């Protein structure tokens, strides 16, 4: 919140947190202070379900390069699957 650069995106999926698997319904994406990464700022993604409380969270703290590479890789993998007719988007 020191940078105030944060966005929430609704999503569907499952994540494995400290208490085991849970149904995620939101990702909070921020460029702000990380809790663990040894940097002043990081690209933080928290996959959460707020209705389960603060502990329902899968957290990642990424460097800029890693975040960009991840976005690119997700698009590449989805594109390959789509090319093979494997995606059934609702």
């Amino acid at each position: 919140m020191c940078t105030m650069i944060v966005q929430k995106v609704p999503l569907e999926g499952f994540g494995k947190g400290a208490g085991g698997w849970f149904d995620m319904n939101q990702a909070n994406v921020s460029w702000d202070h990380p809790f663990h990464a040894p940097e002043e700022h990081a690209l933080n993604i928290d996959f959460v379900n707020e209705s389960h409380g603060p502990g329902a969270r899968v957290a990642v703290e990424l460097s800029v390069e890693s975040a960009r590479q991840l976005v690119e890789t997700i698009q590449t993998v989805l594109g390959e699957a789509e090319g093979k007719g494997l995606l059934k988007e609702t």
Partner: protein
Amino acid sequence: MYTTDQYEGMLAETVAIQGANGDRVLAYCARPLGKGPFPGMVLIHHMPGWDEWYREATRRFAHHGYASISPNLYERAGHGTPDDVAAAVRADGGVPDDQAVADIEAAMKYLRALPNLNGKVGVFGTCSGGRHAVLAASRVAGFDAVVDCWGGGVVMQSDQLTPQRPVAPVDYTSDLESPVLGLFGAEDHSPTVEEVAVHEEALKRHDKDYEFHMYDGAGHGFFYDHRPSYRQAQAVDGWDKIWAFLGDKLAA
């Protein structure tokens, strides 16, 4: 300065205060044993939450002779590990300023109700807590000293204002009645050197009692010895300045 032959003891425990809207807010309180009277300090935790560093810092102030309390400003986000709770607050853009100020005021009044307080209470904060410390001391009567450690967002542009943070703390400078000690790192991105200069100019313009120190070779969070941002020499000097400042301003 303490000596090896003196008695020392403290009571450190979780307590509850009645914060904004009458909400029950947990707080960590550490205070020296003895009849005192002791000055008081409210410690405002940083963006990473009401965490172990703040408990240690609260005990550190008690060790130096201050009845100290650190309220959990993230109480309404629920309970869990400090980083899980803080992540939820981060996603919401922080806690509302009005709520934080009322919680901090409640913590100050908790100290003022102690039977062995010397009548003086200061407020200390780092990161977002530094901002909250300046904000609370500007909006609430009852603080006798402010220690702002690299508080980002004291100076805000109009496009940074939000419903939760509708007014830049620097705009309340004329209302600030307590002296301010500010410790900053020249390599910090929030606040920048330029933003600290704007804050300092406001304090000068309103003829306020303040001292600012800008440390070369340090960035954000240079007191945090569990982080790579730790800068040993600057941190030692910064703590020395805090004890000197508070010893002067909070003496009975």
